[in-house]
């Protein structure tokens, strides 16, 4: 048995459009908030991990230097939209293995407006030229397949966005804080059938910070620790004759995390899932075991994932409404679940939440983390 890992502090720079702020500005606000939340001084942090995707060489060094230069090792971590949750997993690995007692993760991204390109890698390649490498289209094709196999309706997907925006309206750190009706979502501009504009996560500027500690060290600061209890990561597996898993082996990685945490889907009180596009939540309620295969559409439609539902999901608005600054998203997911388990989520609070699950995916890379208090 290694050291148990505690999420000791969390912090965000509000998500949104911040053209006047630098990557350093965004990171500093999140990092200082997390240090204050933890009650820790930066000089006590022993290692830094920075999740970002396109902020350039040395981003980790520059962002950590905003709050201090103490000579600690700093590592940049890139796993597309799942970068900062993977950074937190690497920090947790090192604490669990006894290497450090206190580590800090910064996730940050400043993004251009418009569609995310470059799915085919830096070479771009013929797929970009042919118009195939379009992110919403990849989700749309999975959605069409789901509709074909299980009779899922566009309204089911759209309802995810309605619920997400309702939650976002309760979150002062969300990019969109305005509720939308089902008609608003369905009537917004079609992007790639069945996905409309309001079913796409926006591009966002923002930062997140998470401070992780060994249980022993954490007990010096808190009597009610939130544990990062189990974590598992994976990437697509080639299986003969089966099409690629576009967003990775969600089901398998979730099973590993459940097993390590000694829990099952029924034990989860609140969850964060990767809703880069509205169908994501429908797929994931099935893949994470919250409902049977093929029933994700009606499950979401009936309100089971609302804050007052059976398994509240994306209580902070999720990627769709809180926003999706890709390198910062994992840290924001951890932030929301930590607040939920502490009972500090205000109007978004899920009563008496004790166990939480995070799912964050990036072009095939999958991270699942279980938290307990």
């Amino acid at each position, binding site marked *: 048995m290694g050291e148990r890992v505690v999420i000791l502090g969390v912090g965000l720079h509000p998500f949104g459009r911040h053209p006047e702020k630098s990557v350093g500005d965004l990171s500093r606000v999140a990092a200082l908030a997390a240090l204050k939340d933890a009650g820790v001084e930066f000089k006590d942090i022993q290692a830094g991990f920075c999740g970002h995707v396109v902020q350039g060489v040395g981003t980790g060094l520059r962002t950590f230097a905003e709050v201090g230069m103490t000579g600690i090792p700093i590592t940049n971590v890139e796993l597309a939209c799942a970068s900062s949750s993977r950074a937190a997993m690497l920090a947790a690995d090192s604490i669990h293995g006894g290497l450090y007692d206190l580590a800090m993760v910064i996730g940050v991204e400043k993004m251009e407006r418009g569609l995310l390109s470059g799915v085919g890698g830096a070479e771009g390649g*013929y*797929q970009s*030229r*042919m*118009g195939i490498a379009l992110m919403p289209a990849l989700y749309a094709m999975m*959605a069409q397949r789901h509709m074909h196999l299980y009779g899922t309706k566009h309204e089911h997907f759209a309802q995810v966005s309605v619920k997400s925006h309702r939650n976002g309206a309760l979150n002062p750190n969300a990019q969109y804080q305005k509720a939308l009706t089902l008609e608003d979502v369905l009537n917004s501009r079609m992007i*790639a*059938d069945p996905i409309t504009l309001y079913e796409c996560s926006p591009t966002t500027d923002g930062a997140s910070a998470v401070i992780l500690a060994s249980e022993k060290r954490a007990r010096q600061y808190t009597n009610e620790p939130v544990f990062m209890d189990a974590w598992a990561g994976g990437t697509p597996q080639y299986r003969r004759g089966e099409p690629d898993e576009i967003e990775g082996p969600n089901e398998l990685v979730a099973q590993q995390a459940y097993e390590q945490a000694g829990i099952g889907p029924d034990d989860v009180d609140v969850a964060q899932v990767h809703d880069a596009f509205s169908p994501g939540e429908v797929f994931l309620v099935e893949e994470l075991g919250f409902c049977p295969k093929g029933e994700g559409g009606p499950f979401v439609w009936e309100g089971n994932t609302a804050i007052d539902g059976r398994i509240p999901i994306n209580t902070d608005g999720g990627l769709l409404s809180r926003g999706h600054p890709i390198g910062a998203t994992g840290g924001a997911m951890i932030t929301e679940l930590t607040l939920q388990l502490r009972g500090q989520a205000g109007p978004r609070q899920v009563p008496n939440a004790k166990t939480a699950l995070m799912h964050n995916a990036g072009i095939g890379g999958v991270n699942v983390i279980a938290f307990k208090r």
Partner: protein
Amino acid sequence: MGTETSAERKQVPLKGARLRLGDSPALLGSRCPDCGEHFYPPRYVCLNCYREGLEEVPLSTRGELWTYTIARMALPGSLVTAPYVIAQVRLPEGVSVATVLSEVEPEAVRIGMPLELVVEKASTDSEGNDVMTFKFRPAPDGSSKDPS
């Protein structure tokens, strides 16, 4: 732009797309000599048995629509105009190919419909050559045709 005449004009495949032009166009994929697995785009190491050095083979020109979407916008720099249909086509070899559909009303597209390869001009390069790309279009029902 240099002068161009139809006599000098050649057809070249879109860069990166392994495509045989001419009288019997086909996608050129990889086949593993050990386990028989096929891949597109081509690759060097077999994902099924890890053999290095796969052979280049023409793939079946007919397949079945696995899934699709109607893209209502195109990324800057792409050679398509919206709306257009993006599709995954399953070939008899077990290969899944990402492509664009041609010669079909978007509303008429159905999962499972038979499709066949078609080669179309995508653009003109700086030397005046026709840059050719592949798409798939609806095919009459029937069994998949053998390659070559």
